[in-house]
Every structure is written in structure tokens, then in C-alpha cells.
């Protein structure tokens, strides 16, 4: 059975990356980073959530935008998949629906980089009985 092709190659890469890597603990302090949760439920996957998440990971890396992107379960908006929840540090989370690559690009360029919300937000539709 073929095991990993070359751990030696990976070790070389590890040494190269190690010297460049920032010491910030990304996972331990996510509240200081842009957080994106991608709904990866059956309806989400069938609607293209995998492509959306892959695009977000690659594009945010490419643009050098520090962020934590995770997959989560169903958020309940099956009619609007793919959906993402975007949290900018210091702000309330916002859920976007119908997030394909084009919409994801728009969210990055406007909401994340310029703090300007774009169309497609799924609003909170419930209210407390005390109101």
C-alpha cells in the first residue's frame, strides 16, 4: 500500500513555512479575526456550499485577509443555501443567503474590506415577547 509519497518533502516545507509563520495563535483568539461560518448541511452541499467555502478560503488567503473559516451544520435557512454567517470583530453576526462565488467575492470586496453590507442578508424575523 502506498503511504505518503514524501514526508521528507513535507518536512522541508515545514521548515520553510516555520521560519515565515507569524506567532499569533489564530484559533485561540478568533474574536479578533473575521469569522465566517459556512453552513455545510445536505441542502447546503447540494446547493454549492463546498465551492463557496473553497473560494472563501482561497480568496481570503490570496488577499492576505486574516480570518477563520469554519464549516457548521444547518442554520435553518435551507431555502437560501448556500448560507454563511459573517462576523466582523466588534460587530454582530450577519447571515447571507444564496452565497455563490460571485456573491462571496462581493461580500469580501464590500462588507469585509469596506464594511459596507450588501444585498442578500437574511434578517432576524423573530422578536421577543417582551417587546
Amino acid at each position, binding site marked *: 500500500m502506498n503511504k505518503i509519497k514524501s514526508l521528507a518533502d513535507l518536512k522541508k516545507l515545514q521548515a520553510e513555512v*516555520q521560519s515565515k509563520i507569524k506567532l499569533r495563535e*489564530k484559533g485561540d483568539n478568533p474574536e479578533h479575526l473575521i469569522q465566517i461560518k459556512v453552513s455545510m448541511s445536505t441542502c447546503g452541499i*447540494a446547493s454549492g456550499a463546498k465551492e463557496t467555502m473553497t473560494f472563501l478560503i482561497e480568496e481570503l488567503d490570496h488577499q492576505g485577509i486574516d480570518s477563520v473559516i469554519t464549516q457548521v*451544520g444547518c442554520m435553518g435557512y435551507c431555502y437560501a443555501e448556500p448560507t454563511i454567517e459573517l462576523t466582523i470583530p466588534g460587530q454582530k453576526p450577519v447571515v447571507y443567503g444564496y452565497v455563490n462565488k460571485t456573491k462571496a467575492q462581493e461580500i469580501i470586496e464590500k462588507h469585509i474590506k469596506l464594511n459596507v453590507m450588501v444585498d442578500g442578508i437574511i434578517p432576524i424575523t423573530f422578536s421577543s415577547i417582551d417587546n
Partner: protein
Amino acid sequence: MKDLSLHILDIVQNSIRAKAKLIEIEIDERSAENKLIITISDNGSGMSEDQLERAIDPFYTSRTTRKVGLGLSLFKQNAETTAGSFKLESELGKGTKVTAVFGLKHLDRPVMGDLVGTLILLICSSGGIDYVFKHKTSSGEFEFDIRDIKQTLENVPINHPDVRLFLKELLQENLEHIQITE
């Protein structure tokens, strides 16, 4: 789901929700027997006998956000449509194993799809979960254990862009080498 890699991604979500720490994905292509066997097993919380009986029912789910759970039933349906079979095993507190057998050459068998992309997404975005991936064909076998990778990387994060690219190329090369099915 339009391809098998998306089914794998979907079923693995169940393992993640069950708080699995180790998820094993095995694909076995048996051309001589005309079978494609996909097995996904985990060491998550498992299911009780009652839950196990009802898990395939699309109108049964442990989620609270909606009333349907389609993943397992769609996977089962697709397998059986190709003259295959489906088996779900689970033990509470120990884990769950899903085995789907597809007719390898059946006209209705979904294509494999972007298997590499799916594996990279799972490996690089699921925190402390370890994956073991095995793929067997008539041309060879390939095994990928994320624990070996993490050990080699030491404190370099597995979702670092350069590591992600390396892993993508590693998977692509090895899967091409064993000539996995479309």
C-alpha cells in the same frame, strides 16, 4: 447530490456533529466484481438502537433547526438505484459506520466528482479531527493518514496555504497514479 464526493462530504458532517475525533474514509473499487464500496466510520457518540432504526428515515433527524434529515436516505437511495446496497451500523458511545455499495459500471452511478477538493476542505477546516483516507483500485492502493502529516508539520497549521497546496498536489498525484474511477 450530483457526485459521490459530495455524499462523502455530507455523511462526514454527521460524524463531525457526533463529536468524532477520528474519521476514516475508505473507497474500494472492485472492477472484477463491478462494485464501488464507500465506507465512512467514526469514533463519535454513536446512536442508540432506536435512533439507528430511524436514522434512514428522511423525516427523522436529531437536529432542531429543521424537521428532515436527508443525507443518509439520499446516499442509500443512490446506492440502491445502482443495484448496490447500504448498511448503517452504530453503537452508542463508540461510533458509527456507513457502508454504501454502488454498481461501479452502472449507468446511474454518480461520478466521483472533486474528491481531492472535498478531502482538502475536510482536512483543512475541521480543527482537531483526524482523518484516515484509503483508496483501492485494481491499479494500486493509496493511504493517507493526517496524523502523520500533523506530526511532520509540528506547529505549522495544517490549513496554511502552502501546506494546503502541497496536500492537494500529493492527493492528486497519488490518486492519478492508482487511476481512480471518474
